[in-house]
């Protein structure tokens, strides 16, 4: 999927983009009037949260591709994408929690948006557990593809179902809920930084994905060498 040149490029570009992002967030964007400095977390909260959806969408698409072609390469990308996606879920949850402590006066609240985000993460933890419970690689790939698809269809329905409910989670882009707490208007610099954050985290996602796939290849080679040694 990724050759060594692409891997090297990503390995250079992604940390660079992240460093620039940190610089922008700390020095370039203006301080938000009401919330103060803690609002700077916003850029590294929204971007990874969106990348989760990208990651899990790629898993679903690779699952369909596997079911159509029976090519194990798709399965490897699908599982790598879930693992990287879960890392981004943790980043989004932790940064959100740290922001919520001063903004909502609590680390965690049973807000529908928070709850459904966690449920989505649990779907993909279940995805990994399902894979561990299956030994036959072909069956593992098939089941994982089907579950990745079912899980990904359930995510938007869950989000839609909670949209009907009131939520206190602010929606900065698009129409916010009337009961949302902690929303704000963005200046052009803030918008530009947010867009840059999306790009930077997308690069980071592809960088981690490529490295995870490379790791899988190396692990496979080690297994083959071990098997060869055991035979000899």
């Amino acid at each position: 999927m990724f050759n060594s040149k692409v891997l090297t490029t990503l390995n250079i570009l992604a940390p660079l983009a992240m460093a620039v992002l940190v610089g922008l967030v700390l020095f370039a964007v203006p301080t938000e009037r009401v919330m103060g400095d803690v609002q700077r977390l916003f850029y590294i909260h929204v971007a990874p949260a969106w990348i989760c959806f990208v990651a899990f969408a790629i898993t679903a698409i690779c699952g369909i591709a596997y079911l159509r072609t029976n090519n194990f390469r798709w399965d490897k990308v699908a599982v790598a994408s879930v693992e990287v996606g879960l890392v981004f879920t943790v980043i989004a949850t932790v940064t959100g929690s740290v922001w919520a402590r001063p903004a909502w006066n609590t680390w965690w609240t049973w807000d529908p948006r928070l709850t459904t985000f966690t449920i989505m993460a649990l779907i993909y933890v279940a995805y990994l557990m399902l894979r561990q419970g299956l030994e036959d690689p072909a069956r593992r790939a098939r089941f994982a593809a089907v579950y990745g698809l079912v899980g990904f269809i359930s995510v938007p329905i869950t989000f839609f179902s909670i949209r009907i409910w009131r939520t206190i989670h602010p929606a900065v882009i698009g129409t916010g809920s009337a009961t949302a707490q902690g929303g704000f208007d963005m200046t052009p610099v803030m918008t530009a930084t947010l867009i840059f954050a999306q790009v930077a985290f997308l690069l980071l996602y592809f960088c981690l994905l490529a490295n995870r796939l490379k790791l899988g290849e190396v692990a496979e080679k080690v297994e083959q060498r071990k098997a060869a040694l055991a035979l000899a």
Partner: protein
Amino acid sequence: MSEPSSEARIRDGENPQLTHSLQRESAGWQVYFNAVLAILWKDLRAEFRSRELISAMLVFSVLVILIFNFALQLDRVTRENVAAGVLWVTAVFSGTLGLNRSLAAEKDRGSLDGLLMAPIDRSAVYFGKFLGNWLFMMLVQAIILPLFSILYNLPMLQPLVILAVLLGTLGYAGVGTLLASMSVQTRARDVMLPILLLPVAVPVLVAAVQASGGALANQPFSELTIWFSLLLGYDVIFIAVAFMTFDFIVEE
């Protein structure tokens, strides 16, 4: 031990009507429909003789309702507020029990292989098992709802609550049958089904609780339309996905 053999007899087509209709290759649609009914009929007969599935689901449901009463320290007001939630948690947990058993029995007795070898479309196997599971869940609810009305002193037997139960169990059994076919083939299969199914079934749970809770609070249908359409939409989407992907789950 008479039960597997009776199942086998039905499967092997001792029912003359069934054999006859399965042999008519021309009417493809009817063959499919008959195959679905044959699998459903097999499950119903096996259940009628052993009564292991429904009785287990029923006793478990009653237990959950009673435990909730202690766990939540229910007084009259809270009882009315949490009734819909308790009802659906009960339905979901007992449903998981039934789904697991229904597919595990097929796997253990080797009868799943028999079903798959039958010259029918494999999705017919899915629909047969799914309709059976749905029917069992509804039968349990048919007993639980009146009991719930008495214990919680609430009018559960009203059209909107029943509609919510029908649609909610439909979607739950639909996606549950697909995931149970998966989980029985994994190593830690008894714990696998709830882990796979519950997070995916959350929209059903949310919509069903809201719909039946609203109905219990005497809200008009017009205010609950959104929840019922959500239930219906979920049912259609997930049964369609299960129909398309079931082949990959039972493939060897």
